[in-house]
């Protein structure tokens, strides 16, 4: 079931005056900023943390290299970020940039093609299990009794995967969203093995039958059509949205003026929400908000 208003996502370049640009996009009604990828020269998580205090409700989705990041580091940085953003964090584990970055980690870190999905999946599972080492309501923080947390609600994980062995518990509380919004790109082969848990999927498909098939395979996932930030293809996107075949668009990198014009064009179509909806990102756009939650 599509949402009533079009979900608007924008690729965030993290160049120039970042905060000003992020605030402007938030004011224009953008729902998600996706930070990372080849065009972004700064570390996406640090950028997201830098932006968080100034932003109110826009979602910050950080692209994370799934093949060179360690689960313990990812789990706690993402947990911290979810707190700092008030529950507006999303994450997008990706294998797409592996070849471009791996030499910085050493040749031994190169993952052969046939193992990439498995290792990335292991990374995602280990990270998720670390969050689960804390129950949502573990924190008590009662000065008078001196009880800070319920010991029964924090536990070791003892995760043993093919690539990662992690004991836990995590040294960070359960993220406010329980699970930060999970985003994938159809261009990334990884999306095939993460389909059951993907909240938001970026797709390049414009053929209605292809989109219908995609929907059928993942009815609880929001589909965002990748569009050029300059505005080409928006008419088609609006049409697909009206037919319920997509839930939103993701505007790819383009000069700010062009992106703003694209957003204005969408607003003119009447498909964007009037104001922003408060609430955690996952509550707004996650699988659970469609009430067909599949626990992975």
């Amino acid at each position, binding site marked *: 079931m599509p949402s009533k208003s079009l979900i608007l996502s924008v690729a965030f370049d993290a160049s120039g005056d*970042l*905060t000003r640009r992020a605030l402007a996009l938030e004011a224009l009604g953008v729902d998600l900023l996706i930070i990372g990828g080849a065009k972004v*020269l*700064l*570390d996406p*998580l*640090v*950028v997201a*943390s*830098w*932006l*968080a*205090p*100034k932003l109110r409700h826009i979602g910050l989705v950080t692209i994370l290299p799934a093949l*060179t*990041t*360690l689960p*313990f*580091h990812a789990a*706690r*940085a993402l*947990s*911290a*970020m979810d*707190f*700092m*953003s*008030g529950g507006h964090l999303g994450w997008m584990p990706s294998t797409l940039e592996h070849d471009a*970055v791996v*030499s*910085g*980690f*050493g*040749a*031994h870190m190169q993952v052969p093609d046939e193992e990439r999905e498995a290792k990335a999946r292991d990374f995602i599972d280990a990270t998720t299990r670390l969050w689960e*080492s804390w129950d949502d309501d573990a924190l*008590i*923080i009662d*000065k008078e009794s*001196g*009880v*800070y*947390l*319920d*010991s029964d609600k*924090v*536990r*070791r994980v003892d995760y043993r995967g093919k690539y*990662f*062995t*992690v*004991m*836990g*518990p*995590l*040294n*960070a*509380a359960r993220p406010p969203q329980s699970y930060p919004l999970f985003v994938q790109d159809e261009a990334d082969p990884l999306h095939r093995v993460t389909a059951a848990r993907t909240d938001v999927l970026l797709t390049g498909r414009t053929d209605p039958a292809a989109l219908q098939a995609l929907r059928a395979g993942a009815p609880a996932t929001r589909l965002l059509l990748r569009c050029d930030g300059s505005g080409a293809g928006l008419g088609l996107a609006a049409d697909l949205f009206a037919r319920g075949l997509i839930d939103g668009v993701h505007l790819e990198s383009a000069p700010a003026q062009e992106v703003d014009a694209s957003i204005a064009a969408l607003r003119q179509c009447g498909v964007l929400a009037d104001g922003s909806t408060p609430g955690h990102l996952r509550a707004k756009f996650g699988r659970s908000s469609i009430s067909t939650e599949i626990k992975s």
Partner: protein
Amino acid sequence: MSPLPELHLWAFLQGIGHYPGGWRAGGATPHAVFDAAYYARIGALAERGCFDAIVFGDQLNGRDAGGRTPGRLAIPTLDPITLLAVIGAATSHIGLVATVSTTYNDPFAIAEKFATLDFLSQGRAGWNIVTSAHPATPWNFGALELPDKTLRYARAEEFVTAASALWAASGTGETVHHSGTYFTLEGKLRTPKPPHGRPVLVQAGQSEDGRDFAAKTAEAIFCPASRFEDSFAYRADIRARLVRFGRHPDSVKIMPGLSFVLADTEEEAIAKDRALLELAPEDLCIEYLGETIGADLSRFDPAAVIPLDAIVAASDFPAAYVKQVLAGPAAKGLSLGAFAHAAMRTPRGHQTFCGTPEQLATMMTRWVVEGACDGFTLQPAYMPGELEIFVDQVVPLLQANGVLRKAYTHSTLRGHLGLDA
């Protein structure tokens, strides 16, 4: 007459304060450590006090004691770089120093994170370089045991070399080739070059190896020093090593730790300190000790003499590690409860000052003017209350004494340290 030396202030903020029971203090806001607004607030507080920097400590293991998570201890800290980025965005001058371990990290990823923080903050980032020492840490990274100390130091040195090469090449377009014992990499950072090209390097080094490592690479050094004489000797030793390594003796700032509890009179301060320590009742102390040695101690009788063998058997950590902590006290016939209390009260060699703001300002001024240190790394017993008292009442006195700046004259961390060449 030569001008007075500059007194540098750093705030070492670990969670909700350094006293294990501190989270329960009236002036503590334990819920707030999960909010961005809190970090913006303490950033503004430190800037108001003309501090050089805020430092966050870190660990790479969860709170755990033999499989049971202590229920009375506060979370030490959230991910430091995340918190410092939040503080950086909300401030304009304060330095942002993150503790990051070289033992379970990669130079490329860490170099990129620091370069990003340094670039966004326009030259305010710093790295407190540590190695992992807690026996539970390796379990989070696919290993059973820590590498031994010499190897950890060797890896740390190479890590810093590789990261420094990456920072140095930043903005030149050149690919760095590093081939060593622990790392072999070929890469270049994409991050644009920050004002000084690299973060300030900070260390704490006590052993011979540690002092040499610090003297070779650090720009600021933490140390424990409960007495003037100890701090003076340490500073003199480091300065001599700097000269030996071809560096100017002023090129490193020595910043001993300083824990403090302040009140209108010395008696009141001592009473306040006692009250703060009493916020950690015996069960909290025993949890704290249990966490240190990796065993759930709640099942042992606190009134009985330390059952060394039983605890060693119950612990997940190597026997030698546990005995190092408990063998001496057990031999002395101390009860588990009594030792746990005592252990909680010893802030690991750092100085704890109980007195009035005037007394503290006098002590701090004397240490710096007479060459025992270049400043202090403040460790508030609980946050933010005790740090607020310091900024409100001690900072003006230090400024009146002529040792602390009344306003920032630089906007980079190296500038605040007087190392901006």
